[in-house]
């Protein structure tokens, strides 16, 4: 045990394309491929990557919302994969998820009160309707929603408010660990800041640990203590956020950080390296290093041997999967 709250080892999830009794399952996609991960208590670990990187799948695996194909996973020192369905249901009180789409994540036919109370009902917390209603009201206060709107339906709320409802639901059972799956990417800039601040505040108040999934480099920079960069199901680089951004070791990280547009017109005079090519198909990833087809520094070795995620620096705090790391 390394003192981490969440510990994943060689976590892998395969999806088969075409699945049925008579249809032969053809290709398999290794959506998450042998990921090692430690999330320390009360830390925010961000996971950044482009489409097809497997970051959302990884988030769902960590709270066992979907079953891993192989690998091991522990939560607070207990083997999460060994739990039976009853024990797992109990465990799930400690782990929650906040979703990207504030429209799809709330049942349109339920009132806000019932949406936020659903976890309480499912786990039989609180006696009777009035006690649950008090809890719901307190949760609404906590996330900055007017408790007078308890009996309204989701469509009466704006995107940012809906996201608050989703956050209140996730907090209902006092979890320790929350997977935030692109929680602000569907929101307008001015609302995004409100929700980011709220998440930060809740983290302090409720002593939460976050796994924060995002494609937005600036959001990740702002919220996270450490970061892992994923590409086609593999972690390419991980480490303390400030250091990774300041001195990326993996070429992919370097391109990602420089590609993000910044609200500074003078950036146009800065010669930026631009990553060429497209993201390879996850059905048929390149041999060796998966990034090599887009990598301007690729050597013959990269096509033959897949670089392992190796520790660097003091305490192996930074890790990189590259034969020729930068700097």
């Amino acid at each position, binding site marked *: 045990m390394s003192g981490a709250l969440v510990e994943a080892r060689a976590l892998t999830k395969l999806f088969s394309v075409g699945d049925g009794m008579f249809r032969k399952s053809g290709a398999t996609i290794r959506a998450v491929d042998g990921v090692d991960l430690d999330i320390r208590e009360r830390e925010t670990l961000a996971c950044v990557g*482009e*489409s097809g990187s497997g970051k959302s799948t990884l988030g769902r695996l960590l709270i066992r919302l979907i079953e891993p194909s192989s690998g091991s996973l522990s939560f607070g020192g207990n083997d999460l994969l060994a739990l039976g369905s009853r024990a797992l249901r109990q465990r799930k009180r400690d782990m929650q998820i906040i979703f990207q789409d504030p429209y799809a994540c709330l049942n349109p036919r339920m009132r806000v009160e019932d949406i936020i109370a659903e976890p309480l009902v499912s786990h039989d917390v609180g006696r009777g309707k009035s006690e649950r209603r008090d809890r719901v009201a307190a949760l609404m206060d906590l996330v900055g929603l007017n408790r007078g709107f308890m009996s309204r339906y989701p469509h009466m709320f*704006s995107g*940012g*408010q809906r996201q608050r409802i989703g956050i209140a639901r996730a907090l209902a059972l006092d979890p320790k660990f929350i997977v935030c799956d692109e929680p602000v990417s569907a929101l*307008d*800039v*001015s*609302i*995004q*800041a*409100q929700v*980011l*601040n709220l998440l*930060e*505040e809740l983290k302090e108040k409720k002593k939460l640990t976050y796994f924060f999934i995002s*494609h937005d*480099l*600036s*959001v990740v*920079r*702002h*919220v996270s203590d450490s970061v892992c960069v994923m590409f086609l199901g593999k972690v390419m680089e991980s480490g303390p956020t*400030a250091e990774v*951004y300041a001195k990326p070791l993996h070429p992919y990280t370097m*391109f*990602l*950080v*420089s*590609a*993000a*547009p*910044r*609200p*500074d*017109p*003078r*950036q*146009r005079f800065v010669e*930026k390296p*631009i*990553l*060429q090519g*497209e*993201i390879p198909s996850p059905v048929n990833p390149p041999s060796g290093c998966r990034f090599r087809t887009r990598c301007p520094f690729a050597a013959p070795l990269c096509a033959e041997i897949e670089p392992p995620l190796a520790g660097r620096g003091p305490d192996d705090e930074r890790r990189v999967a590259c034969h020729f790391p930068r700097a």
Partner: protein
Amino acid sequence: MSDTQGDTRRETAGLLEIQGLKTQFRTRRGVVPAVDDVSVSVGRGEVVGIVGESGCGKSVTSLSLLGLVTHPGKVVGGSALFDGVDLLTLDNKGIRAIRGRDISMIFQEPMTSLNPVYTVGQQVSECLRSHASGVSRKAARASVEEMFEMVGIPEPRARLDAWPHQLSGGLRQRVMIAMALICKPKLLIADEPTTALDVTIEAQILALMKDLRRDTGTAIMLISHNLGVIAETCDRVYVMYAGRVMEEAEVFELFDSPTHPYTRGLLASMPRIGGERGPRKPLYSIRGNVPDMQQLPKGCRFAPRCDFAMARCVESEPPLLDASHATGNPGGKPHLSRCWLAEASGAGGQQ
């Protein structure tokens, strides 16, 4: 075409002059003034950005120009002079002749903008042939191939026969750009062209747009919610909020010394990549929500969310005021701000 007006205009007059554009949507619950008295100008070869949050009217502005606003929306006022012709007075046939030839558009979602039952080569050459009569199939195919090469599509000849679903999002957006540029338009309207794309692909497309602008001299109207995209590509920027232009300035000036509290709030609420280290500070956040477009406040539309709101702001809405004196750059390029603070000289400029 109205090029007969003479080359003297080329330097001074704009390519597109939108004056007082008003577009409304009639719903059963009332009228939504989606675009309310908006004036935007685009010079020849200029890249103009329109930035704002969802529902601010930035997309409806561009759709209004091209007669693409559909029921229950309607353009109810204003003019849009394009090369001396008022686009808003043209009939369907007239606007169709301009659309795709003199003004073309690219949208956010490159998949739905392409017809899945034709190859991308067919679609782009169809676009060319419908606007330039007398171009043979073969000649069209050759120019499409050339255009594909220009927008950076690898193996352009082979890609002519590709179906839309065979291409990645980034390549589809390149095809859309090729289609938009095939008739050598004077103005390209790009509505959130990179929003659906991954970060590294977004950087490629933005670089491509900059190259094209340099090589072809096409003016671009770039509509985006992303201040970063705007900052890196535009010459001049309009900031829209609740159907109105709130601030208008040259790009360096806007980002160096924004005067409108809304613009300042937006910039302050963005998390920065190169942000400072040390203890994490909360982001500045604009409080509240975007106003209900059916019940707009009487005074300034931003007043209910504004940290600097005064009694006057609730009473009457400010016009677009000259803010150049407030930014220490009087007499420079126009810098307008719809805020009473811009009038109270100097005070608005300092952060």
